[in-house]
Each structure stands twice: as C-alpha cells, then as structure tokens.
C-alpha cells in the first residue's frame, strides 16, 4: 500500500516542520522532503477542443504547493488539447481521457472518472478553478472520496493550510486540513494563470471507467461577445440600478467599456431589473473579479457587490449620492449625475 505509506510520511514530515525549535537548515531540508512527497492534480477545463485559459490558475496554485504537478483534461479528440496543455509552464505530466462523454463536464460521469485517476496517481492534492465547472464537479468528487473540500481559496500557507474568504469576503478564514487527498477549488483572480508556453510535460492517457451518465445535456445559450472575459479582464466597467433602464445601460456602458477596452459587469440590481445579462453579475453570488481597474457607475456598493470586486487594484466610481458605501472603497470617486458624467468620460477617454 503506497498511498497510506506516503501519506504517513507526509504527515510525519509536516509535523517535523512545525516544530519551531528545528534549526533553519534542517527545516529547509525537511521542506524540500515534503515537496518531493507532494503531488497535485490540476483539473483543466476545455470547451470545444480549446483549453480554458482561466482554469490554468489551478496550475499556478499547485506550483505554490511545490511537488509535482499533473494536469487532467477530458473530452472528445482531446489529444490536441493535451498537447496544448503540455506546453503550459509548470506541468510535469498531462493526463488525458479521450471520450465524448466528458465534453460537457457532467459531474455524474466526470466525477467517477476523476476519482479513478486520482486514486491511480495517488495525488495528495486535487485542484480546480472555482468556476461553474469546478463548483459543480469537485464537491461530488470530494464526497465520493469522503473528504471535506476547501472552496475558493485565495492563498496557500502550507501543504495543509489554506486561506479563503467567508461571509461574502467580510472575513478571511485560515483552515487546516488533514484529509487526503485535499480537494480544493481555487479563486482564479487570486492565482494568476501562468505562461501557456515554455513547458514540456509528458502526455499520458488516463483511466476511463466509463461510468454511465443519467443526465442528458440538452442545450446551452451562451452570451456571445468580442469583449474581454469578465472574470479575467484587466479592466471592468460596471453599471447598476442607477442606470434606470436597459436602454440607458446599453447607451452608456458599452461605449465606455469600448473606450477602455474593458469587460462589462453589472450589479445584482441591474441584472434583476433586466438591464444586463445574468452572466455579467459581479458579487457574492455572481463573478469575482480583481481587475487593474474597476470603474462603476450607478452602483451603491452593497456588501454582496463589494464581495465580488473589492480586490480590484484601482476602484473608481461615479455616483450621485456622496454617502453611497461605494465611496468608502473607491480610490477615485466622482459625485455626480452618471447620465452626464459617463458620456463625458467616454468622450474624453476616446480623445486621448
């Protein structure tokens, strides 16, 4: 039994590492020993034969853990995706499972397949992005392995210690897990995707238990857009209830986003009122973004909204209410009527 032995060793090594009295040289040595025992599987997303770049955040998180990092991709004609993934920096091996049954990422058969590959590879950690795919799949995997998942981590403090936001980001929790393997989803904006070039991983076929899938995928309706993807955009322009209607949202927000080359986001109020599509919602229950610039207009700054954007580098806002909570987090705040200020800002930015 290799797995229990290795896990035992890992725990022992970790315990040694915790002993504060150990001289620095020897603890360094032990840290290195732990890293050799760590092995992480990063579950990578693909769609229609293309690797999802935002899922590479799980690789950069895995690199922080140390140890070997493998990636897994599954779907039809997957070899080309596997070859693409093999070039990602930091991966030692890419495991692929070529079967159209995994194309839509349905957890009913994807989870058993993943479980088999986790067992075969004896991984100590399994990471995936905290995306719709990862959120749907990973807890099912964790339950099948009888481990308590750690969701949406924003930092790694040790091989068993992780940091994650709770209460809509109003508190930061540091937890320690003794489960093996550790099943984790990773907040994409907290671990920047590494380089997609420069790696040279080996490519290997994984096991395919071919579990039956009781769920039938019927259809999808994805918003088409040439704009940068909201979750990974460098700049985001976001509108809220203050825009008053879908017409005004569409008249004012897209031109400003275009002037900046930004993605478009929205508050829950704007989405609920039908001004913008659901998929644009930023907040606790929508997307988490952490762009270089988050520029918003007509958003008051409710805690549920702040949860999704307060890690942005620079926050700018336009709001007519000087007491709106958004001004407490904004680096640049302009008190004024957005119906005047937004077009003016758009014009002046275009003229630059």
């Amino acid at each position, binding site marked *: 039994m290799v797995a229990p032995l290795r896990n035992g060793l890992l725990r022992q090594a970790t315990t040694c590492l915790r002993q504060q009295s150990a001289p620095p040289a020897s603890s360094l040595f032990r840290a290195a020993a732990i890293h050799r025992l760590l092995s992480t599987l990063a579950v990578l997303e693909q769609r229609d034969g293309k690797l999802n770049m935002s899922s590479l955040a799980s690789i950069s998180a895995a690199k922080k853990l140390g140890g070997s990092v493998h990636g897994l991709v599954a779907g039809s004609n997957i070899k080309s995706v596997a070859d693409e993934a093999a070039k990602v920096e930091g991966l030692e091996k890419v495991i692929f499972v070529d079967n159209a049954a995994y194309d839509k990422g349905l957890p009913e058969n994807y989870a058993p397949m993943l479980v088999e590959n986790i067992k075969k590879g004896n991984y100590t950690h399994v990471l995936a992005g905290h995306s719709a795919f990862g959120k749907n799949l990973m*807890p099912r995997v964790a339950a099948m392995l009888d481990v308590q998942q750690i969701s949406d981590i924003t930092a790694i403090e040790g091989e068993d210690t992780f940091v994650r936001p709770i209460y809509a980001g109003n508190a930061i929790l540091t937890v320690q897990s003794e489960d093996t393997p550790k099943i984790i989803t990773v907040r994409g904006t907290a671990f920047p995707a590494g380089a997609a070039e420069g790696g040279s991983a080996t490519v290997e076929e994984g096991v395919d238990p071919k579990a039956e899938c009781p769920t039938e995928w019927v259809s999808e309706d*994805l918003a088409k857009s040439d704009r940068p993807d909201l979750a990974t955009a460098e700049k985001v322009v976001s509108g809220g209830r203050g825009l008053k209607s879908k017409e005004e949202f569409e008249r004012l927000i897209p031109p400003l986003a275009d002037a900046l080359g930004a993605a478009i986001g929205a508050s829950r109020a704007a989405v609920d009122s039908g001004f913008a599509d659901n998929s644009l919602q930023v907040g606790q229950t929508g997307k988490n973004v952490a762009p270089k610039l988050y520029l918003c207009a007509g958003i008051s700054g409710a805690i549920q909204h702040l949860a999704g954007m307060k890690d942005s580098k620079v926050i700018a806002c336009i709001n007519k209410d000087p007491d709106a909570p958004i001004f407490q987090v904004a680096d640049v705040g302009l008190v004024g009527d957005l119906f005047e200020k937004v077009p003016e800002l758009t014009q002046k930015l275009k003229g630059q």
Partner: protein
Amino acid sequence: MTSLRILVPVKRVIDYAVKPRVNKAQTAVETQGVKHSMNPFDELSIEEAVRLRERKKPVEDILAVSVGPAKSQDILRTAMAMGADRGIHIVEEKIELEPLGVAKLLKKVVEDEKRNLVILGKQSIDDDANQTGQMLAGLLNWPQATQASKVEIEGDTCTVTREVDGGVETLRAKLPMVITTDLRLNEPRYASLPNIMKAKKKPLEKKTIADYGIEAGKRLKTLKVTEPPPRKGGGKVDDVDGMISKLKELGAI
C-alpha cells in the same frame, strides 16, 4: 405520475444585510445578538417546492430539515409558513457542521423519509462553500442540477436550466434528483400572518445527529478568522478631468 416527495434543507445564517464582525479572539465571526434569518438561497428552494405544488404537480409532501441550534426552529417555522408541510430539526448546539457532515445527514434523511427530490440553495451566505447539494448527489449517486434558474417536471423527468459561466445550459434527468437553486429561479413569497399561525400547528420533529448513527464531525480545523485588509477609499475628485488624471496617476489607464 411519480409523486414528488420533496426535501428542502434550510440553514439559519446571519442576515444577509448585516455586516459580519470578527470576534476579538479571531476564532470566528461574532454571532451573539446578531440578526439571523433563513439563508436566502434556501427561501428560493422552499418557494420552488411550493410552486411545484401550485402548478398541480403531484407533490405528496414537502419536508423542511435543518441542522443547528435550538433557534434553527424559527426558520423551520418560516419554511412551514411559506408552505412546507412538516419539519425535522436535527438539534446540534455545539458544532457547526461542514458540508460533508450535512450531506451525510441529509442522505440518511432522504433514505428514511423516502425522498425523491431534494432542493437546496446553491450556497449558504456564511461559509460560501457551495458544496452540500453536490456532495449529497454524490453520496446518493443521483443526478444533480446545480445553480438552477428554471425547473420543469413532467412525470419523472426533470428539465433544469442552470446558470453557468457565460450563460445558461439545460439538462434533463430522471427522478430521483438533487437540484440547487440560483437567485434567478423565483421570487420567494412573504409568509402571511394566517400562514404563520397555521405553521405553528404543523409537525416539527426533533432529532439528534446520534439518531442517524453517522459520523458527521468536523474535518477542517479553523486556525484563525481575520478581518480582510481594509481599503482606503474616499479619494474624491471634482470632475471628469480630475478622474482621468487620477486614474493615470494610479496607473489604471
């Protein structure tokens, strides 16, 4: 027609409008004297179950269940005032269970109570884990449809539209099934006073974790809970030009 025996798990959490405060010892969020309510996503679950009945689907009964301290009873009464037929309160004063423990308990409830549809909220707004429904589906080996924005049931076939990154997708599966609710699913009703009064007479069973004979203890150890680093806001500018120059100064444009 398969009759629907629905289970709706509900959780008592700090009210969504309250800004949580970390306690002085940095071990948890302060819950003493703080307003609590039903997790907003769980209200959507109850509402959906009740609407299935109102849409003349063959709903045999709607069972609400909650694990937690004595006060969790209040939200079970709320669930019943909204239309659940009965409740089970698994009383646990000391530990706040993790999703895996809750999923294991729910599995037992599903089996004991012969449920064929479980509707849960997609996440609780306190620990933001987004795991319990998926874990339950995994333990039961049932199909799952998470982040549902539309649920249609014909016979024993469920068609669910789910919110995914970039849009929506539609899935179909047969009962039994686990569904988790997203905000866009429905608009939960307010319980009327007569219904609140009636809910007081609905059966509410008390149980303990031990009654289910499972190990539901905690796996993760909380090392600390801290306040997030504060942002220093308040840098106001007078006009659009001021905004542009400040953004340039900050390197944002």
